[in-house]
């Protein structure tokens, strides 16, 4: 999995690419931990490049959400595609997070 994070005006944006599985999700959690320490109030995950996610990935995202909420921030997801979109829907995770069709919409969601 490729993880690219960048600072936006009022938020951090993290773009994920590739496969988010039991082996790769810990790296995602670490990347998010740094961002959360940075104190940003909105974390946008761009999943447009993600082709695969398993329960380990969902669990990581849930964990990140809890941490960011604990410091008064929030998580927004965008660009869910293909199998990733379906796993979010089937698992009920799609209803637990604000999800958007574009990065711009997600960034504007504060």
């Amino acid at each position, binding site marked *: 999995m490729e993880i690219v994070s960048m600072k936006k005006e009022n938020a951090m944006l993290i773009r994920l690419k590739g496969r988010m599985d039991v082996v790769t999700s810990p790296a995602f959690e670490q990347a998010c931990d740094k961002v959360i320490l940075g104190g940003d109030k909105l974390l946008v995950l761009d999943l447009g490049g993600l*082709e695969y996610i*398993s329960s380990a990935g969902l*669990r990581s995202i849930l964990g990140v959400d809890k941490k960011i909420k604990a410091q008064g921030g929030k998580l927004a997801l965008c660009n869910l595609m293909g*199998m990733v979109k*379906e*796993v979010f829907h089937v698992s009920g995770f799609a209803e637990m997070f604000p999800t958007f069709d574009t990065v711009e919409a997600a960034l504007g969601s504060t």
Partner: protein
Amino acid sequence: MDPPDEAVPCRLKLPATLESLDPFQDFVRGQIRESRCPQETQFKIQLALEEALVNIAHYAYPPGGAGWIELACRLESGGKRLWVEIRDGGRAFNPFERGKPDMTASLDKRQIGGLGIFLVRQMTEKAEYRRDGDTNVLTLQFGLDAAP
């Protein structure tokens, strides 16, 4: 190459560790290559396999022990269906006896658990468990044409 005969499933047996996950996925990927099924279907198969295999690696054997997993698979119905059997020698555990996780619980209250088995069920046409002597046997069936 002719499709492998339905009577002779291909098999791979490896230690029950997370390091074995990729070789198992590669093995199944190799087996279904000739079926030319949609990539999204392949990802769903990989999802069910990951959930089932990770659970065995995590829970089936006492820590530190030398557990194994054996995966057998074959194409059926002229390449339209994939049959997978996953065996382990760990403690008896029927994953389908548990209830479904509570998908309506609010995010804060929700327990993180049960999701893996739930996804195995969702991604398969058929998913069955049986105990065979000292062995757990999980049988999974996937349609290869379209999404299940």
